[in-house]
């Protein structure tokens, strides 16, 4: 089986530091207000385009892996703040690096763009579609920031990180994963002004208005991350063919199975999955029981 090992890593942080004290010169905020609520003391502001940051991070990751740009056959660029929509940003990194043999694609899932890119590149390596991939996560959000809104202006900065993945027979790299999207929460974070829907409406490009429900986002993020972690660990256990040790449960084995259905999968699937399983059992429970009943005499006969 082929795996996608992480063999190179690099980052690029712009040198200009925007402190909380800097923010307080034009926002109604203080260092204490920001640190208490976010833990953040500073963020970086870029003076160069995102592709330039990505190129520096990529060169560092390639050197770390001991590879040349020509060794790459895939570049995945994760971002929601692309320098241009067309051509794609991954091709900008490709031409800057001189990676002549690479395919190049952008991935935008906002905050999780890098991790979705890592999943995508790892999967393409596992299938054999690529052997050596560069995954970049970069944001240059300062030009799009609503600098008058302290609820968002204090939270975001510019920066970039990159990894190199290489095909290997060793069991390394992404071994378990869980991707998810709570589409019902689209309204909790929307940057008005970024996208074609705002074209020809007298909106100056770069002037934005952020719909940002911080408490809802925090709640969804914590729940979502916890659930995703449990599921990715469960997927790993499933892939490895290992069984989770079961607790000793009183009663018949059938009781244990029913309890599993009532409270969700032991590998961490949530209430929604538990509800689906309960519904499935209501609909098909009798049929399953019938199959079990029919199966026993046959096994007994073979024995």
């Amino acid at each position, binding site marked *: 089986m082929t795996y996608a090992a992480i063999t190179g890593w690099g980052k690029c942080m712009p040198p200009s530091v*925007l402190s909380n004290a800097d923010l307080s010169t034009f926002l109604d905020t203080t260092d204490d207000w920001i640190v208490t609520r976010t833990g953040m003391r500073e963020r970086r502001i870029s003076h160069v385009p995102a592709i330039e940051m990505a190129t520096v991070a990529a060169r560092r990751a390639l050197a770390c892996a001991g590879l040349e740009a020509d060794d790459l056959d895939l570049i995945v660029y994760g971002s929601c703040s692309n320098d241009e929509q067309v051509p794609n940003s991954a091709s900008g990194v490709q031409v800057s690096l001189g990676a002549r043999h690479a395919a190049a694609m952008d991935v935008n899932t906002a905050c999780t763009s890098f*991790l979705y890119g890592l999943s995508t590149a790892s999967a393409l390596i596992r299938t054999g579609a690529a052997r050596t991939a560069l995954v970049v996560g970069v944001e240059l959000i300062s030009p799009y920031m609503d600098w008058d809104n302290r609820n968002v202006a204090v939270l975001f900065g510019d920066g970039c990180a990159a990894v190199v993945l290489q095909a290997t027979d060793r069991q390394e790299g992404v071994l378990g994963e869980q991707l998810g999207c709570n589409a019902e929460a689209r309204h909790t974070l929307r940057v*008005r002004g970024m996208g074609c829907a*705002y074209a020809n*409406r*007298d909106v100056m490009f770069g002037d934005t208005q952020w719909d940002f429900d911080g408490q809802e986002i925090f709640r969804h993020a914590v729940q*979502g991350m916890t659930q995703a972690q449990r599921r*990715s*660990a469960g997927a*790993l256990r499933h892939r490895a063919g290992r069984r989770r040790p079961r607790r000793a449960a009183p009663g018949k084995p059938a009781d244990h199975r029913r309890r599993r259905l009532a409270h969700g999968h032991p590998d961490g699937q949530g209430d929604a999955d538990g509800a689906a399983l309960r519904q499935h059992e209501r609909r098909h429970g009798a049929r399953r029981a019938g199959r079990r009943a029919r199966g026993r005499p046959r096994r007994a006969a073979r024995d």
Partner: protein
Amino acid sequence: MPAFGAGLTVCAHVVRWGARVTPLAQSDAELPPASQTALELVNAIRALKAGARERSGAGLNAPVLAGMR
């Protein structure tokens, strides 16, 4: 096990690192030096937006967009 998420997308990975945890080589790639401080960069962006805010407001809140899910 890294995981990350916001209000919308979430992702978690179980990653096994290889035996090597140090770089094979170092790159000398660097960004060009910045001639402005971060505050100067931000204030330049704010100045560009200042004149456009009133004009952009209507487009940013156009009814057809307000109904967009």
